């Protein structure tokens, strides 16, 4: 399969690949600041109200959060495996790995949805079903608001990633990529790993609090 020609603004395909990768890195830098602002706000309140945040954190579902962490880290592994397989000239096996990656992403969303359901039964969902437990003050509701805003925005990012991975899996199945041309896979891999990394920060902020 011949390599695609570079777009008109590029001299070579290599230059186009470098530009695409730099573009994704720059985009991820903006994403760091986007999530960073939210996580910064979370820690400002956590430092201001340490005892209340410990009480609130006890109601976070540590087991489900841990399962999800395992799922997402594994999905980064399969993502990298897909890129590696294309490099070795096995695009159809790479396509399979991409499907697995997308399925793991969907599994994460499924577990997350079930966790939201348990949160609802546990009356920790602000606006919909929220009851303060003994010794808890209103600021506990702030913890849960951050929880839903942060995990919600993360889920939106993950959903976008799942759709993109599925599209690239179809492309890979149709032989669009080869050992000589796989730039879109690498660019998407950066994004996928970033979404994974954001989850690690959210997990560290939400689940282990006060359980030492």
């Amino acid at each position, binding site marked *: 399969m011949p390599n695609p020609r570079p777009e008109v603004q590029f001299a070579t395909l290599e230059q186009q690949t470098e530009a695409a990768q730099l*573009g994704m890195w*720059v985009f991820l*830098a903006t*994403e760091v*600041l986007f999530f*960073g602002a939210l996580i910064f706000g979370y820690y*400002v309140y956590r430092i201001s109200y340490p005892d209340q945040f410990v009480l609130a954190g006890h109601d976070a579902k540590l087991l489900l959060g841990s399962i999800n962490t395992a799922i997402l880290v594994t999905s980064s592994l399969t993502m990298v495996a897909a890129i590696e397989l294309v490099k070795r000239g096995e695009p159809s096996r790479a396509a399979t790995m991409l499907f697995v990656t997308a399925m793991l992403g969907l599994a994460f969303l499924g577990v997350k949805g079930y966790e939201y359901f348990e949160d609802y039964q546990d009356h920790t969902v602000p606006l919909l079903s929220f009851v303060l437990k003994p010794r808890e003050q209103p600021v506990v509701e*702030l913890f849960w608001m951050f929880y839903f805003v942060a995990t919600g925005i993360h889920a939106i990012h993950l959903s976008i990633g799942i759709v993109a991975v599925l599209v690239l899996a179809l492309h890979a199945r149709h032989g669009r990529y080869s050992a000589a041309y796989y730039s879109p896979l690498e660019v998407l891999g950066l994004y996928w790993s970033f979404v994974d990394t954001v989850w690690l920060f959210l997990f560290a902020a939400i689940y282990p609090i006060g359980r030492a």
Partner: protein
Amino acid sequence: MSAVTAGPSETYLTNESSIASWFLTKDHKRIALLFFASVTAFFFIGGAAATLIRLNLINPAGNLLGADLYNRMFTMHGIVMVWFFLIPSIPTTLGNFLIPLMIGARDLAFPRLNLGSWYVFNISGILALYFIIAGGDDTGWTFYTPYSTLFSNSHVIAAAVAVFVNGFSTIMTALNFVVTIHRLRAPGMTWFRLPLFVWAIYATSLVMLLATPVLAMTLLLIALEHGFGIGIFDPNLGGDPLLFQHMFWFYSHPAVYIMILPAMGVASELIPCFARRPVFGYRGMTYALVAIAVVGFFVWGHHMFTSGMSVFAGIVFSFMSFIVAVPSAIKVFNWTATLHRGSISFDAPMLYALGFVGLFTIGGLTGLMLATLPIDIHVTDTYFVIAHFHYVMVGGTVSAFFGGLHYWWPKITGRLYPEMWARGAAILTFIGFNITFFPQFILGYLGMPRRYYSYAPDLQTWNVLSSAGASILAIAYLMPLFYLGWSLLWGPRANANPWRATGLEWRTSSPPPEHNFERTPVVTTPPYQYNPEDDSYVAQDGAANA
């Protein structure tokens, strides 16, 4: 000369003529013109709000608009002018048009993203028009909580979402510029051969990329709190309105540099060309641009001296604000030194550029007064602050924008504008601006607070003077619309390099062909190789007096 003037007969304006060829174009030059149409429309919308504000303040009773409408009017003026004119103004129009030309590229790195940025901008613009037509927002452009989230009954969500969406357009354009400047420079175009306008847009883009996401998150939280009661900043739950102010100004102070850095870039192109001298201290100019962009991230607290910050934090932010003035001062001194022993001509772009330097200097020096804690406590939230930032943003940025527009007009349109009319408009801008805003320094010093629809009757003289100046300024801003419009149809044809300038953008025909250059230029010389002694110059591809 012949190699340049014998350009292709098809220019980027004439190679395709269908409507779709404009609205689906991937050519950075056409997209620049699309952006130009959009930001010009918003300039006049924001200007209409300013007109009503100045009309209202002719009378101390302020009974033209009344309190509620006045609040909505200054909010509309602020939001439209900041996000829909000043921030996109120079980068999306002149930047979009010139960056690929100046670095010898065929287009930006991501042409579809560039077009997408224009569509996202217009979607946010429609949302902005919606919140204006639906009745407006009365929170001020700063959206301070808890007023914006718990009390205001105006269209806060629509306004916040409009600005939120607008941020995506900013980020898309900035990302495109950064990647383009990194990856698409012509052979020989090293970092220290880049024209200062490119450096300025690069520094601006970095600030856009790192600050705008914080605003996006902040406004998202405001909209969620106002709309759904997800009260992140709600004091009833233990939330902290000061946290909002920190997050807002973490974006909005760097945003000031988003507005002024491109203007500095324009001035750095114009002044050497019309003084026929290399810019003084080129390297220092580049370091100063980057220093302003970096240090600008650590001064946001000077907007909050009276908000309940600790004295220690106040002193630190005050100190940092003085530090950021150093690279700004370096730039002013270097522009001035560039004039020394130059062969200066006072064409319209140069008049605008000199106006920029003078007005920016006044804006900057009064900024130092405001960075001084005891003075700030005295004049905070008065017209002194209003006058200060209008000297920077209107006197500085808008003057430079008009200067750049005139300077590159022959390149963009292939037509020369009428010089005498343009000089008249440039001088009138300077006069009208000073009559409008200098009295506001005095009003602020006398204690007139900002954001009030009425005021003490003994302040009327200065307010009437300010409003009179605004009418002069309005005429000065409307004039180019007519004579530049006239030149589109009847202006004399421009050759490739009417200013005898050194940048690569002048080494292709006016207007340029679709992909900018017949052959990719090879850069051999630094920018601004002008010689005032014999009026010779060397273009960046090594051609002498071409």
